[in-house]
């Protein structure tokens, strides 16, 4: 049994193996000095580029009146709704589809294998050209989508960026297009590490596709799925590029998310404190996510 299989065989419910006592628990002398020296570069980056600017940002946004201004701004309230929709739908739809598609790419057909490198292409294409292209595809009657609709089916397509919900949907679609391949690859490797006997056992027991997914694959990949979803949620809250380039906040700032609104306040409206406060207001939602993430990674480590 390889170590990977061993790890996968341990279920969340199984008793956690106690941590192996470390043989040199207390480093001393030159050993300790070396360990410190190795950590110093990253510690310097962390202190100078995370802690210090974050503290500075908190100090910039210390005035309670800023938050009163924010809540009073109807733009802000709508932006919070957009952010919840963009992150909630974007991340979860993307992750769930990635999990399902990783099963599709497990099939042993030559053309499915050939399709995989094409399917991964969006991840390799940089975000800026990709989202500019999305903007261009949906720009209206001249865009590729509406052109194709009228040329192939004779339908007059909608003006995508003049309706709030269509524009929001466009942003979410572009986001899913760009990032789904990365997570599909992660889940694909996760499935590949599941020993084949487990599938066969499920087959013999007469489990159908759905039953196999619900009772075999999902429990085994659950931890991986959770960690990936949490990480992705954190990254997506800070995502500026998608909304800025695809819908550009159109129509009339109604599809902005906190990231683009914060930058808009800070650099276009020259109110940096308000911009910081706008993005900062996501912090109460982000801190629990980070804590769950750190705990999950930690308990997984113990199981190793």
């Amino acid at each position, binding site marked *: 049994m390889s170590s990977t299989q061993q790890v996968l065989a341990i279920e969340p419910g199984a008793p956690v193996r106690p941590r192996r006592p470390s043989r040199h628990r207390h*480093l001393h002398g030159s050993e300790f000095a*070396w*360990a410190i020296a190795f*950590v110093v*570069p990253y510690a310097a*980056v*962390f202190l100078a*580029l*995370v802690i210090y*600017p*974050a503290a500075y*940002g908190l100090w*910039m946004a210390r005035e309670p009146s800023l938050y009163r201004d924010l809540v009073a701004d109807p733009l802000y309230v709508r932006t919070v709704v957009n952010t919840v929709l963009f992150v909630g739908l974007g991340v979860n739809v993307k992750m769930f589809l990635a999990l399902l598609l990783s099963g599709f790419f497990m099939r042993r*057909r030559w*053309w*499915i294998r050939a*399709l995989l*490198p*094409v399917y991964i292409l*969006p*991840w*390799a*294409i*940089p*975000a*800026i*050209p990709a989202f*500019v*292209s999305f903007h261009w*595809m949906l720009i209206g*009657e*001249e865009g*590729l989508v509406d*052109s194709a609709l009228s*040329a192939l089916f004779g339908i007059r397509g909608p003006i995508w960026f003049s309706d709030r919900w269509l524009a929001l949907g466009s942003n979410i679609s572009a986001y899913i*297009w760009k990032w789904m391949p990365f997570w599909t*690859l*992660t889940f694909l*490797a*996760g499935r590949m*590490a599941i020993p084949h006997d487990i599938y066969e056992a499920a087959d013999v027991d*007469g489990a159908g596709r759905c039953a196999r997914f619900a009772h075999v694959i999902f429990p085994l990949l659950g931890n*991986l799925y959770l960690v990936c979803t949490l*990480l992705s949620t954190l*990254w997506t*809250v800070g995502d*500026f*590029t998608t909304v*800025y380039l695809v819908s550009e906040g159109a129509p009339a700032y109604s599809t902005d998310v906190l990231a*683009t609104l914060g*930058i808009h306040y800070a650099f276009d409206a020259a109110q940096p404190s308000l911009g*910081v406060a706008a*993005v900062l207001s*996501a912090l109460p939602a*982000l801190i629990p996510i980070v804590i769950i993430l750190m705990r999950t*990674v*930690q308990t*997984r*480590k113990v199981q*190793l």
Partner: protein
Amino acid sequence: MSVARSFGSPVLRPRHRLRRFLAEVASVILGVALLIWSLAPVYNMLLVALDRDEGDIEFEGLIWPPDPSLHSFQAVLTQGYWLVEDFWRQFGNSFFIGLMTMALTVLTGSLASFALSRMRLSNGALLLNAPLLTYAIPSSFLVIPFARLMASYGLSNTLWAIIAANVTFATPYAILILQQYATLIPIELDEAARMDGASPVQVYRRIYLPLMTPALAAVGTYALLLAWNEYLYQYVMLSSTRNMTVAVAIAQFFNSDEAPWNYMMATAIIYSLPPIVIFYALRRYMAEGLTRGALKG
């Protein structure tokens, strides 16, 4: 019951054959849908870039280029238009940022994860995962104080400010992946080397780095793609055309009155090529390094 089923399966009854056929049809349809989904924006880039006319393009109802021409690629590569007149320099800037981000992320990430997990600097949960705290702070929040700090250091219009930001956001994930991957390497190897009198630096160079190659390649590619995808920090901090990157230059077209969109798309396509080449060259490592780490557990 299960025995009967498994005996029965080699002889396919018509109902099974129909189900297999339907499953096959469904997967072909899904495959075609995925192909269109993945390639449509790429095709759209080509469609616009291959147009001969500068300036406004009327594509109403057109789904293939009316008069394909490579003129726009030529104009970009020879810097034959004022919006692309610094193209090669900007391309070099993007490369510099990408490669430095990659090198520094691999270096700081591997040093830190070596000390934390192999030398057991700490058994505490907190220190081991502290880098992940970075992700509690959205990058779009950090950019505002970050830009002010860089301005006060006199670094606001330099490539190093961008590299610093990229390393900040790439390293926590790098440390996570490296630590997970390092659990595949028995700690006894390190201990045996220490017994033989190897210094920590030697263990790091002779044992840790060679055995971690797949994970290091994966993390390096990840950092490079992150740098190539990054736009916000470059947009906020790089203002002069000489110091701009291609990403900012592409977005500049939107601010121009008479933007030649075919040049913009040609620039975008050329800008996309290096990461695609690097990515496919390192794909094997990527899949192994990123996911075996993520999986372990």
